[in-house]
């Protein structure tokens, strides 16, 4: 009881703390020296992480409901707005906190002129993400969705010295605003049908009902809007433009948290609202979601392999992972959701480490082109190891936490009678990890040719390659702008390299300054967290229990709609039997994936396989040309995708 009372103040605090800190930072940062702004922002992000971790621990076993201003439901009728905290949502929120902390530490030496506004935007982003994960109210979900989106647009175009990030931000803003409108219309239709905005109450109103046209349309609009954020084919076209041009610390937040929030919302709304509809729509809806997931996973992996621009490559890797998570989520079983959650944590940490590593390379070598960087990794050994480890971990190298998630996902697929999903996952994971390994091999080992693998097709999908390099140079030039004004932190020899950077790429090794520790350590720390989680015993059981509690619609509704105060009864919770952690078969599968990824990288780097690469490049040319980077095309795809989703939902729900 003590725990319940004390943690009920933690629930709103986890959103209020970063939000209030952001407001204060905008107002008062001009009176603070730079180191104080950085320290305060990092401390707030860490505090938010701690609060959400407390919530995750406290809500294990029973959901925690918090009613704003104490407006509890009366006689089963919801009149207030609630937070419904479960371990899964709180865990997602704490992942956001960890990544925001890492990004802010990294910013210490990355930007020269972060006048509090950047930090404030990151903190608002964090607050909105936490809000998104905890809320039990559909309209509040929309507001958090938009708040995440608006801060993300601003962060993408932040400090842009070149049109490329601005264009990325505009494409991102236009497509995601349309996604937001779609969500809002869905909210409106659901309210029109049920008269409520509370997820639990809507779920009760729809429970056992046969879906009519309005409910189908509401489902398609809501899910479609969330899938825009999750960058699922065909809603994904904005993602490479935004992630490929945003500043590195921002990419960390995007790839690790933002896309995943889209899928989180899809499954939250399905589990609390639509899963209770009569008509046994589960299996058909599973087919729809799995289809979208497989398409996204494969398209993302193939496109990642076709990139030579490192940030765009990681963007497509992110997209491919979203497909894999959608496969896990789309199984619509607690075990699949548990597997996807662990993968989200593990891959999120690893992708962030990769982005941060690429940021170090960009900072030191003023390029993010795999071809131009060939053999120029000497002197950046720590970063090289980070990137290679990150790439191997993306292929689910045990005992990293992704490996546990992969094992759960495969088990869920087998239980659902779809064991062939394992092959799809293995294929896309090896392709996307292989792409990163290929880049690492070329940069740090000097393997492969220094020619673009597809001279015939030019850079059809990479129009901004040169331009982005220039903008990156401008960015790093900014970063070097004021080294003297900063408190030196361990590297007394001044700012990062680049004042004397040799643009020809010769003689670069001897004259480089040390990479600041604040840029080297965060990626390693993120990988260490993932490794630590993977070594923790029982992490799979915890994830399975959290996912089971998350998926239990009846228990959720009971917890939210009860009127009396006091701890929630824990009855009705599905207990998933403990699985033999990381069984021998699972380890072998994971090692097979790692081996396959290494083979992909090896083939991609082998000079003799140039014919094969040409053929592949020609075969995927049409796919790359689809990613034109024109916002008009992207919106056309979005509308077509919404129409397709509506048709599929009609078939699945009716």
């Amino acid at each position, binding site marked *: 009881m003590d725990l319940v009372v004390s943690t009920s103040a933690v629930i709103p605090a986890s959103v209020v703390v970063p939000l209030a800190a952001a407001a204060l930072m905008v107002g008062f940062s001009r009176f603070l020296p730079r180191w104080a702004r950085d320290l305060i922002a990092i401390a707030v992000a860490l505090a938010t992480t701690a609060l959400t971790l407390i919530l995750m621990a406290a809500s294990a076993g029973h959901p925690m409901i918090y009613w704003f201003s104490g407006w509890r439901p009366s006689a089963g009728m919801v009149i207030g707005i609630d937070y419904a905290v479960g371990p899964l949502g709180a865990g997602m929120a704490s992942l956001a906190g960890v990544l925001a902390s890492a990004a802010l530490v990294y910013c210490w030496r990355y930007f020269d002129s972060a006048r509090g506004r950047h930090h404030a935007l990151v903190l608002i982003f964090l607050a909105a993400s936490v809000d998104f994960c905890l809320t039990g109210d559909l309209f509040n979900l929309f507001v958090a969705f938009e708040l995440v989106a608006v801060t993300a647009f601003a962060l993408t175009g932040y400090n842009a010295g070149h049109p*490329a990030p601005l264009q990325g931000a505009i494409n991102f803003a236009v497509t995601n605003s349309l996604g937001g*409108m779609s969500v809002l219309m869905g909210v409106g239709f659901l309210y029109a049908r049920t008269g409520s905005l509370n997820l639990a109450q809507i779920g009760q109103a729809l429970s056992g009902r046969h879906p009519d046209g309005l409910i189908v349309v509401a489902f398609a609009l809501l899910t479609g809007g969330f899938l825009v954020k999750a960058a699922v084919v065909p809603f994904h076209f904005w993602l490479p433009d935004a992630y490929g041009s945003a500043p590195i610390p921002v990419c960390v937040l995007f790839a690790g948290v933002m896309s995943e929030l889209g899928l989180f919302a899809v499954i939250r709304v399905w589990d609390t609202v639509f899963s209770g509809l009569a008509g046994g729509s589960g299996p058909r809806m599973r087919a729809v979601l799995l289809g979208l997931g497989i398409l996204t996973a494969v398209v993302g992996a193939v496109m990642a392999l076709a990139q030579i621009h490192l940030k765009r490559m990681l963007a497509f890797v992110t997209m491919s992972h979203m497909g894999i998570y959608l496969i896990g989520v789309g199984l619509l079983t607690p075990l699949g959701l548990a597997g996807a959650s662990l993968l989200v944590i593990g891959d999120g940490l690893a992708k962030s480490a990769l982005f941060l590593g690429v940021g170090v390379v960009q900072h030191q070598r003023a390029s993010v082109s795999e071809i131009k960087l060939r053999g120029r990794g000497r002197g950046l050994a720590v970063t090289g190891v980070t990137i290679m480890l990150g790439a191997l971990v993306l292929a689910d190298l045990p005992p990293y936490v992704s490996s546990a998630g992969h094992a759960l996902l495969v088990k869920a697929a087998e239980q659902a009678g779809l064991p062939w999903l394992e092959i799809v996952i293995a294929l896309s994971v090896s392709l996307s990890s292989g792409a990163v390994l290929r880049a690492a091999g070329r940069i740090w080992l000097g393997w492969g040719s220094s020619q673009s693998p597809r001279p015939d097709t030019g850079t059809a999908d990479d*129009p901004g390659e040169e331009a982005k390099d220039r903008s990156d140079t401008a960015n790093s030039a900014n970063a070097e702008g004021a080294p003297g004004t900063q408190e030196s932190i361990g590297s007394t020899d001044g700012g990062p390299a680049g004042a004397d950077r040799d643009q020809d790429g010769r003689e670069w090794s001897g004259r480089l300054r040390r990479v600041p520790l604040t840029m080297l350590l965060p990626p390693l720390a993120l990988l260490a967290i993932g490794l630590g989680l993977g070594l923790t015993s029982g992490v799979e059981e915890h994830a399975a229990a959290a996912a089971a509690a998350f998926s239990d619609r009846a228990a959720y509704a009971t917890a939210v709609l009860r009127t009396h105060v006091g701890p929630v009864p824990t009855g009705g919770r599905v207990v998933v039997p403990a699985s033999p952690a990381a069984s021998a078969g699972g380890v072998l599968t994971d090692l097979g994936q790692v081996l396959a990824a290494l083979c992909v990288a090896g083939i991609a780097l082998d000079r003799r396989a140039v014919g094969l690469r040409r053929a592949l490049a020609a075969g995927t040319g049409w796919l790359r040309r689809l990613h034109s980077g024109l916002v008009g095309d992207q919106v056309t795809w979005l509308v077509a995708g919404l129409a397709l989703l509506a048709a599929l939902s009609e078939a699945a729900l009716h």
Partner: protein
Amino acid sequence: MSVLAYGVVAWLFLVGIYGVVTSRNLIHMVVCLSVAQSATDVLLLEIGYRTGGHAPVFVSLPTHPGPAVDAVMQALALTDVVVGAAVTALLLALVVQVHKRAGTLDPDALRATRD
């Protein structure tokens, strides 16, 4: 009334999207996005509308004022207006920056500057 309102919603949304898709000027595109956005506001107001309902103000009224329109939907529409204003302002700021850096407002030409 009802059919007309939904017709307006569909028209505004589609015409706004058409404008975004075919736009050759970023400012025009941002305005088209706001047009599409206004469709959602009309939709919310229509969902909350009751024929003959009075404004949802519940102080100093006669004892039987009759039905009121739904205040919740009006609050939603108001919030959406705020969100829309934030998005439009941010997009226009980005467009100003684009014009400064690239000297063009045409999305196609902007793409060409990146080649």
